[in-house]
């Protein structure tokens, strides 16, 4: 890593002149559109970029964003957080997870609250750090509460791979990995009784590049083909987002509907085959996964294959982990936000009862959630 200059990651992709140039071209081209287009950014990372860099302020009024299902933290239902909470409260358990996850409220509180009550909860940058924790605490059970989309799944698989190869006895997994295409389909397919099919609001998708670095752009193939929705796989810098928007506009004016990659610097059609193999070796689709605010979505979750049940904390602790469903806060409209039907300020408790310091829904918890992005960066327009 010391050889990699981090500067290379973003340099040039925030260049003011380039951004202004894109603004101009977009303004010109957008005039040729027959109707306004609504672009859904599937991923919270994009929502964050869009708000942080003020992208909507650069766009003509016929180009709109619809914020999508966001990030693994946003969509984690209370039931799963309760699992993490209960596991962390076991005497001999060290619960390990990634970043923001420790702030999400479950029905008893967040993992942060569990920690202030004495539970040993830790966050790591890389799942591999679990190995060090396990070695240093041979008498404890280290449970990795694994979260994330396609991006983070290979890291969990790699950890399990090492655990098996080195025969490490005290690392277990609670798996909450989910996949992006299934939720996109759900957003298009499902109907709401109250709103006359909101799917018509989504005209095109921005696909998260992080996901496609692993899975390739191929996972979105069906959207232009079967659903008539263009997809552009986009990077996270402002220049990336501007260029991707332009690519989408061009598709509309040229009457095309395709899958394109803006983030060519790392994304290919096939993706990272090695990582995909590792995932397939250890994981299989679980029939249902409940998304917070969206409900059960078929085939959208992953779980460990049966051969690896001995590493599955959900299996080992099944007697103490509740299975009932939990309702979300009555006033919280995270579900509608994640579906792209509402924006955060439409929630009656946005910024009042619900703030990043006292989040009620998870859209406010994750720094990549739509509510947090709106709260943090405001909307000066």
């Amino acid at each position, binding site marked *: *890593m010391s050889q990699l200059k*981090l*500067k290379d990651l973003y340099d040039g992709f925030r260049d003011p002149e380039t951004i202004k140039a894109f603004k101009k071209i977009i303004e010109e081209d957008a005039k040729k559109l027959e109707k306004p287009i609504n672009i859904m950014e599937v991923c919270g990372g994009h929502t964050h970029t869009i708000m942080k860099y*003020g992208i909507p302020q650069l766009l003509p009024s016929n180009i709109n964003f619809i914020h999508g299902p966001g990030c693994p933290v946003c969509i984690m239902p209370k039931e799963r957080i309760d699992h993490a909470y209960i596991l962390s409260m076991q005497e001999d358990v060290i619960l390990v997870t990634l*970043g*923001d996850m420790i*702030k999400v409220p479950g029905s008893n509180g967040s993992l942060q609250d569990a920690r202030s*009550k004495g539970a040993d909860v830790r966050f790591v940058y890389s799942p591999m750090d679990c190995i060090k924790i396990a070695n240093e605490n041979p008498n404890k059970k280290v449970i990795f509460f694994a979260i994330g989309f396609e991006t983070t799944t290979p890291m969990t698989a790699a950890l399990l791979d090492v655990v098996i190869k080195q025969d490490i006895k005290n690392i277990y997994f609670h798996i909450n990995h989910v996949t992006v295409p299934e939720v996109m389909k759900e957003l298009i397919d499902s109907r709401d009784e109250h709103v006359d099919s909101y799917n018509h609001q989504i005209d095109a998708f921005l696909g998260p590049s992080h996901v496609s670095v692993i899975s390739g752009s191929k996972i979105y193939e069906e959207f232009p083909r079967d659903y008539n929705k263009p997809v552009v796989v986009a990077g996270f810098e402002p220049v990336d987002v501007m260029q991707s928007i332009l690519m989408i506009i061009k598709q509309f004016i040229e009457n095309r509907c395709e899958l394109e990659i803006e983030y060519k610097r790392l994304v290919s059609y096939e993706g990272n085959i090695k990582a995909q193999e590792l995932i397939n070796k250890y994981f299989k689709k679980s029939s249902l996964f409940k998304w917070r605010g969206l409900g059960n979505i078929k085939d959208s979750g992953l779980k460990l294959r049966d051969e690896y049940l001995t590493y599955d904390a959900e299996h080992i602790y099944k007697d103490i982990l509740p299975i009932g469903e939990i309702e979300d806060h009555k006033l919280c409209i995270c579900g509608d936000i994640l579906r792209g039907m509402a924006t955060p300020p439409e929630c009656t408790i946005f910024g009042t009862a619900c703030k990043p310091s006292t989040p009620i829904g998870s859209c406010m918890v994750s720094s*990549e959630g739509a509510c947090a992005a709106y709260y943090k*960066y405001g909307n000066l327009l």
Partner: protein
Amino acid sequence: MKTITLAHGNGGQENNELISKVFYKAFKNDILDKSEDAAVIEDGNLAFSTDSFTVSPLFFNGADIGKLAICGTCNDLAMMGAKPKYLTCSVIIEEGFDKRTLDKIVKSMKEELEVNGAIIVSGDTKVVPRGSVDKIFINTTGIGEIQYKGISSNNITSEDTILVSRDIGAHGATIFASREGIDMNTNLKSDCASLYPQVKALIDADLKITALRDATRGGVSAVLNEWAKQSNICIEVEEASIPISDEVTGICELLGFEAMALANEGTFVLAIKNEDAQKALEILKQTNETASIIGSVSAEHLGKVVLNSAWGTKRFLELPTGELLPRIC
């Protein structure tokens, strides 16, 4: 708030809530209510301040907990235009702590006292059972002689220009990098330093200083937000003129942080009368080339900080909230 979480110590919103709802409420008085870096007492002649220091790791690139403990309190005094004079030092040590390490820490305290021309005049030591503290906690309290009266973060107006004394976020980024074993280029180094010499240079040049504040926990973002509220003004910052080193930007990219919210231990924000801004900049540049004018005061959105991007968009810069946590991917 039912229990205290780590977020309550972040220098941001939760921290403010804890302080105002618990401590200010109980201890209320005119001096405390000003909530300056140090209390101004004795008819404006003395500044008085205290701070406790806990850091992991104890030694990091650029400084250690000892240097930090002296700089921290001396800088709070300097920020009121005071020359640090007398400090007390109280130490809580975990049983089993290595004596040689303690010597190193104390030596580094001594060196930093000399930079400030201050002395330790009283102290206390406690040793507690293993596990009761994380290795060592140090508290320092200090008294300084005010050299320039009237500095206050409650008096900033549209006649002031906002500067920072050097590139920001280096301390916070260094601590994160060393804690997480991120193998970064070695030039990432805490900014930890005593600020009195720079403040003295500004005072000696006879500049009209309105407010000074060192941007510790909560970073520059917290300082600007507190100032905007305390003086009921809008601070407009030009994003492109905020000095941030490549290393710090790199860490922020990697972990999803904002440099404006990262802690500093030798960087201060300065509000100075418009006509003196250029001169102040020249003086600050003598210590650090990266010193910059970053913003001005307007009446756009009172109590708020607005960040203007180089491509013409605007957004609010909010107080950091929560414990700084790395993003997921």
